[in-house]
């Protein structure tokens, strides 16, 4: 599940050579779908944000640990800095290989009977990869989406997946950190709430019901639009934001 901890792990120096790296991955990978995804390429880091094709993604999961838990639902919303395109959005329920726990049912409201009718992730994988090909993924707390998708593919295709992301939580964390007083920073006190809803409130964005993968993806897309309007500009290069 994507209910996230309040402090993200420290970011490593982000890689900037994603386009070259994708070319390389396209050559190395065995799976046909993955090959198509990598061959679809990625825009270069000097692309202005306004020209960057984006897609917000959110997973609901059976738990927090990618090694044992699995994906239950996926929401995708393609967008640009100007507009979020609901008509191209997608939402899938998938059957996890790990049983649902009572706790996770409470959080995302997806029940056993919903899941029983759902297909395995493998069935929708091609559609999912096609929808994100050529677009930069935008997530709130990247470790969930990155690790769960990598793990899910590893289990099903025998190969993981790697991709650049823009992480709205990481952006918010950095912004808040910069504004924090020196004492707070020295004491390593956590900045204010980094949950999706908390972040949105700071930009005057409305309250959305959390824990529905499609709504969360939409909420994330809106949050990025607001963050760019506040802290960056249309011309900010993608390379400053991706991780």
């Amino acid at each position, binding site marked *: 599940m994507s209910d996230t901890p309040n402090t993200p792990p420290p970011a490593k120096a982000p890689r900037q050579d994603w386009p070259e790296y994708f070319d390389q991955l396209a050559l190395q990978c065995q799976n046909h779908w993955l090959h198509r995804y990598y061959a679809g390429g990625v825009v270069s880091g000097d692309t202005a944000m306004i020209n960057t094709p984006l897609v917000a993604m959110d997973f609901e999961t059976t738990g927090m640990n990618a090694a044992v838990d699995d994906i239950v639902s996926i*929401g995708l919303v393609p*967008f640009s800095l*100007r*507009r*979020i*395109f*609901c*008509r191209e*959005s*997608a*939402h*899938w329920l998938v059957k996890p290989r790990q049983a649902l726990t009572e706790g996770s049912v409470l959080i995302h409201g997806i029940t056993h009977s919903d899941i029983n009718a759902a297909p395995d992730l493998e069935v929708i994988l091609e*559609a999912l990869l096609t929808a994100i090909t050529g677009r930069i993924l935008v997530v709130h707390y990247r470790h969930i989406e990155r690790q769960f998708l990598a793990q899910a593919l590893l289990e099903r295709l025998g190969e993981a997946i790697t991709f650049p992301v823009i992480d709205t939580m990481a952006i918010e964390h950095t912004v808040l950190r910069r504004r924090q007083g020196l004492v707070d920073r020295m004491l390593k006190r956590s900045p204010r709430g980094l949950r999706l809803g908390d972040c949105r409130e700071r*930009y*005057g*964005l*409305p309250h*959305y*019901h959390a824990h*529905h993968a*499609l*709504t969360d993806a*939409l*909420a994330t*897309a*809106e949050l990025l*639009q*607001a963050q760019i*309007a*506040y802290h960056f500009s249309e011309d900010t290069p993608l390379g400053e934001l991706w991780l």
Partner: protein
Amino acid sequence: MHAEQLEIAGFLEKNPPFDELSQEALHELAQQVEVAYYRAGSDILNFAEPLQDLYVIRRGAVETYRRTGELYNRLSDGDVFGQMGLLMNQRVRFPVKAIEDTLVYCIPFEQFRDYCDRYETFADYFESESESSSLLRKAVSAQHDNNDLTTVKVKGLMPRELVTITNRASIREAAELMTANHVSSVLVVNQSQREADDPGLVGIITDRDLRERVLACGIDPASSVDQIMSSRIITLDDNAYVFEAMLLMLRHNIHHLPIVQRQKPVGVLALSDLIRHESQSSILLVRSIFKMSSIEELKAHARQLPAVFVRMVKEDANSHMIGSAMAVIGRSFKQRLLELAEQQFGPPPVDYCFLALGSMARDEQLIYTDQDNAMVLDDSYREEEHGGYFEQVAKFVSDGLADCGYAYCDGEVMATNPKWRMTLSGWKQHFSDWIDEASPQALLNSNIFFDLDGVWGRTDWAIDLRRFITHKSKNNRKFLASMARNALNRKPPLGFFKEFVLEKDGQHKDSMNLKRRGTAPLSDVIRVHALAVGSMAVNSFERLDDVIEAGLLPEGKGTDLSDALEYISIVRIRHQAKQIESRETVDNNVHPIHLTSFDRRNLKEAFQVVSSAQSFLKYRYNSNIPMK
């Protein structure tokens, strides 16, 4: 893949007009939404930019402004904006700025339109919502905005420098001046008359004059220009619209129009300038009518008429322009036929004037119309001596018109009917009888005669007759009351609850006749007012101008009338254009189910205007009439 946008649908559901939509419609709409975020202080919409969406404020606040920059409205959560621009011409009418951080849901235009068509309450909202002036007003003015001919003014396309020459110059000097300046015409001024407020414009010489009046006649080029210049000068103010220039040239069949600014000539507009501006095929059609040398040729030529009509409709001409162009074309056919008749039967034994009546006289003719016409003969006319000639001419013209697509008049209001070939005095007597006796019964079918225009011959007699009628009818209560009563005979097709009243059976079941139930009753109402104020105008819009100026109507009612007339006419015109394109028989019977919900609504409003105009007419002219 069905991705339900729960948040968006959930929000829309709570706000009008979306709250009236079914769950299904709501979710379908939510899936089409685009979302955008604007930080406080940023511009959301700029004036005149193309507009693609209806905006719903999800969260935040915006201000909308008038074009002048003046604050127009402040909107917040759940409010919508952009609808006016979408309903009109898909351009931003009121610029919008975010005054707080604002998240908007954008509903694409196609979706918006589709929902207005599908859901009555949805459409209702945007109409009742619209500001002060009526939607009809807006629909009409938006159409006006879109059109080039009605918005481009003459001064906008006057490329030529003013070239003048004195009236004492020689023809050769004029020709040299024209050559040196690369112009096809020169204005002639009288130096001695010239004063501060009088430029002394006395004539115009064109290329054609040099050919026809100098070379062809062997006149000495050394003689003075006033020997050959045209001294009957028709001018137009530079503030006039290109469309008016076009009509003026068509009407007088001239190719050069001196343009004046506060009476002073500032240039000459040539027909070629107009053609370059708008490849207006109605101009070309009229020009070539006069080159046709037989009825056969005219008949073949007339086949282009539907295409010209359709093109004008597609170019978004308004009803006045189309009506005038069609009337000019019809008039040109008559003129050419009369020319041919005089060639065949010889020159007329006495002077006469050929009259156009009804819609053609009013410049409100549509594609095809009955040929309503008549003849005025000189008072020296003797039936036994001259009757045969005029009967032949009338028959020639009438048959020719029928060949060209103008049907014979059912009511026999044609010059072929001996009853409608009268001397000038005869006509005056006839009008006197109508006006003085003034029984509604006698006047029942005479409306058409009160809209008359001279087409050929002594056209000044038509003006004379008009003046006579105006003089006699102004302030003539009894006559006006009878005319008013007759103007109430045809009611607009609206029921008590503002629903359309449709034909119940027959060939035109479920349709309404926009001429009989719409434009005709309106023209009737306007005619009565025009006669009451002594207007000499014939065109309904021009009559209305006179009526408004005379202060006869309550504030704003005049504009309502002209908007209603324009709207009903244009729906009727578009209906006919559609029929022409699908090769159906052209008629005036419109089925409401074939109209968009916007047209339906606007039509209802327009009919409402007709209805209240009729009530006002009853009150204005029928009260206080002396009982006999």
